């Protein structure tokens, strides 16, 4: 029972990271109708920037984190305007190949700058050691122990889950309530009609890349805080998983990316714990395939209403 609870919490935390990355994939897909396969590598850049800022330059973690977000936001805008914007009228295959090219460019640049050796990511923050409620809850080593030490929750896990919840709330409000968010929804539905309303479509696409990349930076820092090994390929696998999560939830759907990411994380951890340590990924992908067989548009895939 407690082991199940612990697995679920681990899955929720991992899934939160997937969800944050999947949001970037799904927003860009929804608006620019392209799969930005370089998205995973922006995660890696974000992690390196915060690593350098905190570890080499000695900046406080929060500043390192903010710097990573700023750099990735700019990077996202630059990638879009240099690599993708010229291909607005091109076939989707040309755009896909370009995205793969950008992905390798980022990985190889990181290798050139920071080397191929994995870096040990420093702890971002530490919880104070404490013993609460007459010793039934103890905090040491940045880990909270509950239920006679049987359930351990790390500070990073809590931070990750909280960050994910905060991002979901803010993003949902932004998309549904603000003028800019509504413009984004219009562009994702019908670019021409959005232009007729006076929406600057190019600016909206840039903004989407900016938001997606800032989220990638957040994901990068959270990921490396929990799995503290950083190398140029660090973003690739979580990127693919998050892409899977976005498809699982229904590509283009924001709630879908959130739910898909969290479910994928939980399924992966359940598979690792109860099926086989090595087969966690295979298990997660098997579930994805079954979901897509039953519901090809993904869990929250949009039904398109059409009336003539």
């Amino acid at each position: 029972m407690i082991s199940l609870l612990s697995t679920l919490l681990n899955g929720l935390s991992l899934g939160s990271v997937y969800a944050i990355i999947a949001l970037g994939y799904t927003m860009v897909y929804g608006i620019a109708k392209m799969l930005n396969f370089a998205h995973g590598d922006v995660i890696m850049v974000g992690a390196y920037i915060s690593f350098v800022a905190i570890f080499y330059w000695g900046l406080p973690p929060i500043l390192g984190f903010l710097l990573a977000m700023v750099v990735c936001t700019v990077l996202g805008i630059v990638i879009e305007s240099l690599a993708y914007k010229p291909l607005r009228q091109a076939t989707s295959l040309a755009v896909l190949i370009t995205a793969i090219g950008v992905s390798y460019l980022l990985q190889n640049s990181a290798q050139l700058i920071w080397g191929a050796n994995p870096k040990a990511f420093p702890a971002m923050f530490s919880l104070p050691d404490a013993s609460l409620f007459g010793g039934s809850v103890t905090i040491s080593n940045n880990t909270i122990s509950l239920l006679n030490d049987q359930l351990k929750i790390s500070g990073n896990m809590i931070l990750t889950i909280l960050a994910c919840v905060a991002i979901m709330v803010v993003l949902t409000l932004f998309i549904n309530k603000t003028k800019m968010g509504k413009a984004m929804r219009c562009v994702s539905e019908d670019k021409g009609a959005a232009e007729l309303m006076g929406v600057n479509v190019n600016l909206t696409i840039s903004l989407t890349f900016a938001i997606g990349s800032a989220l990638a930076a957040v994901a990068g820092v959270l990921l490396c805080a929990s799995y503290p090994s950083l190398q140029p390929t660090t973003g690739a696998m979580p990127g693919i998983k998050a892409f899977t999560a976005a498809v699982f939830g229904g590509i283009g759907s924001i709630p879908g990316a959130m739910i898909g990411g969290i479910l994928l994380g939980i399924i992966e951890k359940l598979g690792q714990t109860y099926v086989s340590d090595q087969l966690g990924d295979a298990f997660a992908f098997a579930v994805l395939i079954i979901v897509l067989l039953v519901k090809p548009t993904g869990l929250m895939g949009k039904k398109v209403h059409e009336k003539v």
Partner: protein
Amino acid sequence: MSLLKVDDIHVYYGAIHAIKGVSFHVDEGEIVTLIGANGAGKSTTLNTVAGLLKPRSGLITFDGKSLNATPAARIVSQGMALCPEGRRIFQQMTVKENLEMGGYTRPPKEIPGSIEEMFTRFPRLKEREKQIAGTLSGGEQQMLAIARAMMSRPRLLMLDEPSMGLAPILVEQIFDIIKELHAAGVTILLIEQNAQAALSIADRAYVMETGNITMEGPADDLLHNDDVRKAYLGD
């Protein structure tokens, strides 16, 4: 001086020469209609005026200012709105959000008042304020599309086949709405398959055939012209 002046425009889709030197004008306060067979280039012409397509040559001036280099997103704030072919309302947004988007370029504080005005003119939309637009009936969607275009307070409203796919009673209602908007001071440029109805409410008309304007004149004259009657009014 004409409110809208289109002078010898040529528009291409890749290698396809869709508009081959079209000129026309719309004066302030007029209803002008553009009629013609399927594929004549009517929608292409309107989309070009609205900036969604750019002419390869020729001039488009609105209120004395050239629009050739103005992107579509900036044209609406100059006082021109297009209610496009096929309505193209935002299906996944609510009725109210669609109207808000129509007023996208206007100061946010003016929007609630304008939405109320639209609700007074289109009471059906008021009842469905929170409904997802994709679930509206065809007639309701068309009213929403017109209301959305009106939300930008255009001086010139361009309507591309607003009666398409509607039952006769609704067609009549749409034409009544057009007349009301015109009476309220909006200049109208109308494309219609229903040439009879369009010619009856218009001041002037142009006939388009395969990318050219082949006839023009007061709507009444065209309504009683034998060639027009044969070709477009089914006589």
